[in-house]
């Protein structure tokens, strides 16, 4: 018998194809659960067609796809599925903007963006696959982007 670890949701949002191990960071970026009282299910290291992945299911809440684009930094291959009556009614691949502002800290401790200055961190996306970003201020490339998520 097939074991069903998490049941399908009736209404809400499913974020699929999250980089394995990054589901909690995705929730952190989306400020969940602080901004919702809905039931949230998290699956980590699930076997998918293209290897392991994480999945997040948020019941009774439809996330705005644009709002979710900011997770592209840590889960560039994620897809957003809006569910109504158990059916996927909308599907959206996250899109990384040209510039990433205020989402992740520069990994260079002596970068001016880490000092007490009135600026947000700012990165240019120089490659999407593999994901590479460069600090607008100090021109360094952080190796572990997820580690710097604010």
């Amino acid at each position, binding site marked *: 018998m097939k074991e069903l670890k998490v049941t399908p949701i009736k209404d809400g949002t499913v974020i699929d194809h999250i980089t394995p191990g990054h589901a909690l960071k995705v929730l952190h970026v989306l400020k969940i659960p602080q901004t919702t009282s809905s039931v949230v299910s998290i699956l980590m290291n699930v076997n998918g067609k293209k290897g392991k992945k994480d999945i997040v299911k948020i019941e009774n809440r439809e996330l705005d796809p644009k709002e979710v684009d900011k997770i592209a930094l840590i889960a560039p291959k994620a897809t957003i599925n809006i569910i109504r009556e158990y059916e996927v009614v909308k599907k959206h691949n996250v899109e990384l903007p040209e510039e990433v502002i205020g989402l992740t800290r*520069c990994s*260079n401790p*002596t*970068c*001016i*963006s880490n*000092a*007490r*200055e*009135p*600026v947000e961190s700012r990165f240019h996306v120089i490659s999407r696959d593999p994901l590479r970003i460069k*600090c*607008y*201020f*100090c*021109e*360094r*490339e952080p190796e572990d982007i997820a580690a710097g998520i604010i």
Partner: protein
Amino acid sequence: MKFNQRDIISIKDFSKEEIEYILEYAKRMIPYATGEKHTTHLSQQILATLFFEPSTRTRLSFESAMHRLGGSVIGFADPSGTSQKKGESLADTIRMADSYSDAIVIRHPQEGAARLAAEFSEVPILNAGDGAGQHPTQCLLDLFTIWSEKKKVKGNNIVLVGDLKYGRTVHSLAYALSMFKADLTFVSPETLKMPKEVINECKEFGVEPISTSNLEKAIKEADVLYVTRIQKERFPDAEEYNRVVGSYKIDNTLLQQAKPDLIVMHPLPRIVEIDPEVDKTQHAIYFKQAFNGVPIRMALLSLILGGGKKL
């Protein structure tokens, strides 16, 4: 090609054509830089020099360049007497200097400081070194020195020796030399090798730098030897430091193996890496290189502040 009111933050903001234009223009500045000719080109204009870190050549040559162009200079060479010591942000210091001047030169210990300054300033920002980051005017004067001594940059075998890991000038210089398709050799001890990302940038221009620790071999084929200081604090013990410094010391014995027209450059200050006996040889170009900071900075100031009028 637009220079009027432009910020000078990183050599990577410039195309090869723009750099060539600056080098040509700097050549025309030499008689003004030596005092042979006089001009009031930038009279009534004020340059603010904000040095949050010590500097000798960069600050003096910027100030000399502005005075030679007929402008005036305000600023500080030591932040201890400024509001920064009271905890003022760099952004606020820049807003203040912006209202007192027509352009701002900044040296700061933190990387990205000049880029941040440009965000808060209406007047152009010239980066005079931001921590271990960029120092574009040093890079331009180094290029100018090679270009004017060797008549071209392309095809010259340029050997960079010393601390290639932490040395601020060598990273931007390797980038710019690759843009001009110079042949590059990087000579350093294993622990102070050129970072991989700099080597990758060179490769993006189609240049394949050679990395070695053997200076004696590299010097035989060199057209330009660019020497940098090896800092004692980078080594775990004094014995290792002394061994490395000894193996990269440039003296007349080593130079006997070099081509007669090899030029030896150094961003200065030098400590022990070039023996003073080299100063009198035809190879020594480092003091001329330091002078070249004036015409290069004059060219930049004129292009940025001259309102499109050339000297």
